[in-house]
């Protein structure tokens, strides 16, 4: 069964090709939906089959499926001597990619199904599903790739699909701008990522995960030696990879594209900008964890950047009035959480949170999509309210998602967030208590803003257009079923990783152990730092208490509507303005980088217009005109002059000569006689 791994990404690809090229413009929505959902559903089923087959044995070995040689650029001078660099394309199944495979295909399929209901009747239905299938292909290549090259192919593929789907409503300028913004910001990160990959290829002569992993284990000390800019080689590569991750996963300083990406259809936000694509950065860091382990400084940077992003984005989420924007900032914040864990070396916790987050954030987005759908496109929280009774199923689904993300006990978010917080508490990174405190604070903020949204949208009385209020209806089954399934996931996904402190087995962490094992230091396997069970339970209770308190506070303030919250924000006008304008980061980027680029472009345009166009091109034109004029002058006066001169001379000469022709016979006779005489004389002289 696992031999069919290659078929998993191929199925959605066939679906995308069928929808994109085969079925005509007039294909019914039913056909398109069947192709798209069929291919992604088949991929999901096959993925589950592959995973089950992989998990049959007790401690499975990674299963590599090299497919073909992609590029062989030839011999590369590496540090370890010349290496024949060949870049293969293939797939790899190990615990990490098993988790990602499951998350991507499972969530991907349900969101495909959801989209059938959500996008019904939209123009561009077929285009939407083509892109969505294509995205699934790219994402699967990303998480299944057996080397950095294959992964990068998927990495860029998801970036492209993200661009296409953010700009899906391209007739709206804001959507087209948002797509461009996402793409350009990602390019900045990708540049760093590429630099890292080139460095890796130059050092190891390969980009395959397995080979790089064994070489790192063999030459750990050499990789710690100073390399460039005061960084070790491992540090340099780790920094490059992390910069790439900040672009894709919307971390400081490249997070600005994700809120704008909400211009895309809501299921796209759920799939790409919450559950799967944006987590690719976390996947990258965890996949490269051996390199990050050799670069403790960069790892600490990852942790601090993650913590800062988590806190700042949670702060921004507090005051957003757009339902999807709150969720977007929440996603950035939760991704920061994952990076916090990855930076602290708790890679399993990062992936655990990634997986649970995929469920509950997809659920939240889909529920939000159902609300927006029911309200006819309304996204403003101030014009909602009282939907608990009108959209009961949607409201309950959203409630479950909110409880999960807030970290309430039995739900998925609790377990993964707890794993991260206890990792922060137990970590040896300097300042880890500050990181822990930031994590706790962010958890409280998360619970607060999520229930602010919940209260504003579902409690109180309906504040929107009364006419729209009459048409309120729960979603069709294609939208309700995914909500139900994901709600189950949001409740139960965390149970895979119940920590030992609560009598569980932390099966998730153990499962990932082979991939994220601590590198041996001086031949001694490192013992993972752990809290005592009592301390861990204490930490859980603290986090739980903070979350519950924040939820109660949020419900108290916002139950009746936004007024009390608005009054509260008037008390802290500066703080509110800071949060509402997202610390003016967009404006700062606009004033510096964007304006700078524009200025540079304008300068270049001016140079083009002045120096190239007017100077060189027009100069050349003028020079040619002048040259032609000169040449014309020469032609007219010298060449024509010669011709005319010869004609004129001939004319003159003939004029004088024609007088000889008198026509009188006697003259001719005289001339003949004279000539004869002369000839005879000459003969007599020269005889």
């Amino acid at each position: 069964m696992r031999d069919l791994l290659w078929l998993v990404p191929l199925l959605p690809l066939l679906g995308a090709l069928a929808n994109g090229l085969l079925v005509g413009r007039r294909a019914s929505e039913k056909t398109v939906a069947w192709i798209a959902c069929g291919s992604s559903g088949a991929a999901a089923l096959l993925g589950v089959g592959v995973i089950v087959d992989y998990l049959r044995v007790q401690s499975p070995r990674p299963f590599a499926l090299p497919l073909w040689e992609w590029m062989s650029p030839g011999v590369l001078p590496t540090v370890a001597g010349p290496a024949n660099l060949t870049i293969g394309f293939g797939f790899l199944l190990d615990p990490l990619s098993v988790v990602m495979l499951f998350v991507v295909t499972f969530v991907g399929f349900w969101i495909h199904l959801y989209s059938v209901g959500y996008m019904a009747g939209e123009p561009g239905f077929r285009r939407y599903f083509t892109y969505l299938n294509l995205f699934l292909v790219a994402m699967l290549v990303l998480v299944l790739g057996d080397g950095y090259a294959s992964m990068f192919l998927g990495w860029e593929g998801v970036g492209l699909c993200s661009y296409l789907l953010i700009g899906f409503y391209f007739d709206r300028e804001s959507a087209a701008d948002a797509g461009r913004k996402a793409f350009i910001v990602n390019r900045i990160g990708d540049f760093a990522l590429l630099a890292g990959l080139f460095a890796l290829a130059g050092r190891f002569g390969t980009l395959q995960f397995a080979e790089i992993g064994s070489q790192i284990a063999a030459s750990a000390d050499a990789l710690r030696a100073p390399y460039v800019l005061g960084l070790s080689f491992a540090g340099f590569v780790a920094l490059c990879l992390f910069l790439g991750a900040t672009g894709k996963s919307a971390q400081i300083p490249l997070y600005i594209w994700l809120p704008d990406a909400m211009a895309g259809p809501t299921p796209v936000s759920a799939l790409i900008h919450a559950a799967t694509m944006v987590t690719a950065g976390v996947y990258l860091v965890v996949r490269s964890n051996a390199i990050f382990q050799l670069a403790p400084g960069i790892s600490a940077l990852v942790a601090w950047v993650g913590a800062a992003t988590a806190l700042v984005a949670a702060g921004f989420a507090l005051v957003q009035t757009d339902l999807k924007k709150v969720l977007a900032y929440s996603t950035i914040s939760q991704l920061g959480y994952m990076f916090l864990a990855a930076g602290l070396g708790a890679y399993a916790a990062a992936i655990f949170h990634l997986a649970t987050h995929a469920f509950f954030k997809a659920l939240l987005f889909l529920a939000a999509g159902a609300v927006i759908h029911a309200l006819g496109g309304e996204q403003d929280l101030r014009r909602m309210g009282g939907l608990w009774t009108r959209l009961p199923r949607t409201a309950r689904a959203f409630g479950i998602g909110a409880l999960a993300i807030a970290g309430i006990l039995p739900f998925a978010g609790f377990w993964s967030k707890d794993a991260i917080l206890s990792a922060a508490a137990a970590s040896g990174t300097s300042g880890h208590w500050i990181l822990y405190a930031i994590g706790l604070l962010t958890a409280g903020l998360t619970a607060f803003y999520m229930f602010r949204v919940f209260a504003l949208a579902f409690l109180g009385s309906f504040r929107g257009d009364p006419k729209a209020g009459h048409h309120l209806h729960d979603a069709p089954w294609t939208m309700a079923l995914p909500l139900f399934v994901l709600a189950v996931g949001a409740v139960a996904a965390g149970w895979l990783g119940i920590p030992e402190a609560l009598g569980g087995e932390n099966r998730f962490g153990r499962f990932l152990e082979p991939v994220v094992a601590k590198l041996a230091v001086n031949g001694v396997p490192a013992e993972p730092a752990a809290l005592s069970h009592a301390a861990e339970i204490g930490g859980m209770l603290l986090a739980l208490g903070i979350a519950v308190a924040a939820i109660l506070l949020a419900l108290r303030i916002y139950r009746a509507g936004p007024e009390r919250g608005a009054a509260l924000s008037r008390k802290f006008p500066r703080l509110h303005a800071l949060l509402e304008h997202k610390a003016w980061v967009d404006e700062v980027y606009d004033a510096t980088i964007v304006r700078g680029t524009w200025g540079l472009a304008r300068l270049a345009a001016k140079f083009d217009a002045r120096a190239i166009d007017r100077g060189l091109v027009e100069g050349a034109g003028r020079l040619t005109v002048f040259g032609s004029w000169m040449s014309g002058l020469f032609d007219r006066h010298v060449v024509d002059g010669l011709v005319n001169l010869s004609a004129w001379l001939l004319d003159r000469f003939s004029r004088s000569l024609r007088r000889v022709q008198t026509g009188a016979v006697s003259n001719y006779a005289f001339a003949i006689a004279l000539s004869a005489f002369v000839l005879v004389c000459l003969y007599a002289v020269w005889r």
Partner: protein
Amino acid sequence: MSPEAASSLWNVGTEHYLALSLLLFGIGLFGVINRRNLITILMSIELMLNAVNLNLVAFSYQRGDLLGQVFTVFTITVAAGEAAVGLGILLAMFRLRQTTRVDAANELAG
């Protein structure tokens, strides 16, 4: 007819023939160039022709070679034909121009 005969005073020698021939030719040439009447010109041409004939005969006599005299007989015969052609042209011109003055025919003037 020996060469020493030429030394006697009254003996007529080749030089006399040649002198006469030159005179005749000069008169003829003068007539051809100076006269306007086509008939006179024809007559002058006959004069020049006969001057040449005289030359031929004189040299023939001097060299004791009859070939020159035979040649002269032929020349006279051909000259008769030439005179006929000349008179034909004269007649044609007279019919065309109602005159026999050669300066009336000057179409070739440049």
